[in-house]
């Protein structure tokens, strides 16, 4: 049984059919990529999956449990967390606080316990802080925990988004263009991080990515969307050769050489 199972998801916005019968399975222990031209429906699929949109049709099963109609916070609690394409950090909060917010669904202290400053509350807070620092170190933001999120550089902000998403202790991590705007070296180190996460922190990763080097280098499976439809699926090698994918997204000729170099 797959970790995540999307069956025939459709979503329409007025006259625009954003997703048409998209099915997708994600196995435990794998990294999958979602590629396709701009406006193909990749982010819409993420938003549908995380409860921001409700699909018109179709089913979503995660660990054998239907996620249909759940609010975003419940889906996070169920074990899926995400990053955003256009960074959405809490900019007037510190790096540490950003990560701590991510832990919201894992912290269970009651209101009376908080107000009485009970032992359970303070020990849980300390534990949360310790874990947050661990995640901050894991994503390479050592020593920046008391800075405001908006003071970080672009690449660091993307890393912080990943740390924040990991704080919810997800089974499945959804990354929306994690290496956008990064240079080759930064992208490389992020790829290493993703490989490290699998098995240790998360069970599977699904990423949207335009950087073919990252997609081809890291994915176990690639899914291709075009105009809301899934046009191909397979391992990176097969997808790269698929004529429909080449026509819709990759294009003929020159860049293929680039990607291979």
């Amino acid at each position, binding site marked *: 049984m797959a970790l995540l199972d999307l069956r025939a998801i459709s979503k329409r916005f007025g006259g625009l059919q954003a997703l048409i019968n998209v099915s997708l399975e994600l196995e435990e222990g794998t990294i999958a990529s979602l590629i396709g031209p701009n406006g193909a429906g990749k982010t819409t699929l993420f938003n549908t999956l995380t409860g921001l949109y409700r699909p018109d049709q179709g089913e979503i099963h995660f660990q054998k449990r239907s996620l249909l109609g759940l609010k*975003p916070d419940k889906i*996070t609690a169920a074990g899926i*967390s995400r990053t*955003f394409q256009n960074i959405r950090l809490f*900019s007037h909060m510190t790096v540490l606080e950003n990560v701590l917010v991510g832990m*919201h669904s*894992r912290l269970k202290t009651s209101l009376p316990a908080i107000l009485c400053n009970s032992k359970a509350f303070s020990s849980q807070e300390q534990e949360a802080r310790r874990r947050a620092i661990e995640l901050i170190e894991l994503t390479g933001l050592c020593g920046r925990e008391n800075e405001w999120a908006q003071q970080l550089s672009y690449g660091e902000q993307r890393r912080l988004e990943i740390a924040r998403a990991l704080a919810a202790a997800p089974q499945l991590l959804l990354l929306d263009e994690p290496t956008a705007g990064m240079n080759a070296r930064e992208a490389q180190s992020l790829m290493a991080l993703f490989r490290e996460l699998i098995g240790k922190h998360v069970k599977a990763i699904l990423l949207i990515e335009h950087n073919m080097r990252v997609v081809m280098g890291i994915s176990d499976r690639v899914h291709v969307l075009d105009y809301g439809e899934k046009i191909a699926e397979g391992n990176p090698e097969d997808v790269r050769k698929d004529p429909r994918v080449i026509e819709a997204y990759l294009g003929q000729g020159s860049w293929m050489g680039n990607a291979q170099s």
Partner: protein
Amino acid sequence: MRRSLAGLALCVYIAASCLLAYFFPQSVLAFLLVEASLLLLYYVDAPRQIKIFLGVLVLVILFPILGWANGYYLEIAIQIGIFVALALGLNIVVGFVGLLNLGFVAFYAIGAYLWAIFGSPQANAFIPGNLFPLSPNWFFVFLVLSIIVGALTGLVLGLPVLRLRGDYLAIVTLGFAEVVRALMNNLDKPVNFTNGPRGIAPISKPPLFFQPLLEFFGWQIPEAKLYPLYFYFLILFLVCVIIWVTRQLENSRVGRAWKAIREDEIAAAAMGVPVVRMKLLGFAVGASFAAAVGVLFAAKQVFINPESFTFMESIGVLAMVILGGMGSIPGAILGATGVTILNLQLLKGLSLWLNGLRQSGAVLSIPLLGSYSLSQLPAQFEPAKYERMVFGLILILMMIFRPQGVLPAGRERKK
């Protein structure tokens, strides 16, 4: 070494200002110096224990002594306390959760009327049996009750309204406050609940449960002197509780969730924050603070009517929060204190001073321009009358030069 010196300097300053205020009980300036000592305490880098000790000393011992010498000071301190508590409550809604609430005074009014109706003969108008006014001992029950009622009203208003954002929410809260005021004004017929615009009086004061203790020590304190002191300590206690609650919440998952909602609602939801529940909680907590302060206000005033709960009050409290710095506890306290002092002391003091000059007929001589007799100063020129203008001017200047407030919720100092 430098820090201990600073602590010593603080002690000297507090002693000097208190002596001044004690021996010149009529001097506005002397009392302002005493009030400023608390601000200094906050800013000066001295050992923590000394700062806490001095703060407690000023608030618990020196202020009451000065208030004993001049009852007006105590009245000001109580007013400040009331507005500090209100500002802290609104700070949760506006500063932490980021919801613009223009009708905060409605919750304050609900608390005040709760005690006013049952703590006076008013309730006899609709509950038979001549049970009212309730004995003063019920005051504390109603203080707790008001917290619950305030929270519930916050929830009832919040449930339908919190789907709205920004300007729309602000308009609805404004409308809510006006509805509450209209109800207070008009619920005098067919059944007389609120006695309408005539207001309710006399409202019971809190019980003097410590009276036996005073007698035991052989202290005879006339009630006229005792009650202001009593209210001062009550409001001080209430403010301390509110600060404690706010701080605990701020440094917990609740406070972080609030701020996350303020920063980015969608991202907060995606990180597992139940947005609607947390907003409701923020609304309820803020409202419960206001309602509790309302009970105290009603008991202190003895008489209340709807005029005390106008839109301008809401705006005033909001301005305190904004001036002090949104989302900052010290900011809300400073904002409330500053504005109250400005209204009650500074402008009035300035008016008195100018009147004095006018009557003394002093002549102001300016080189090149000739001399000008101050007795010709037009009578319209009286700072106390320009309260709103001065206030507005301060707000405008603040928004231009320091939009984040005097004491913003800064993390820089943490480093």
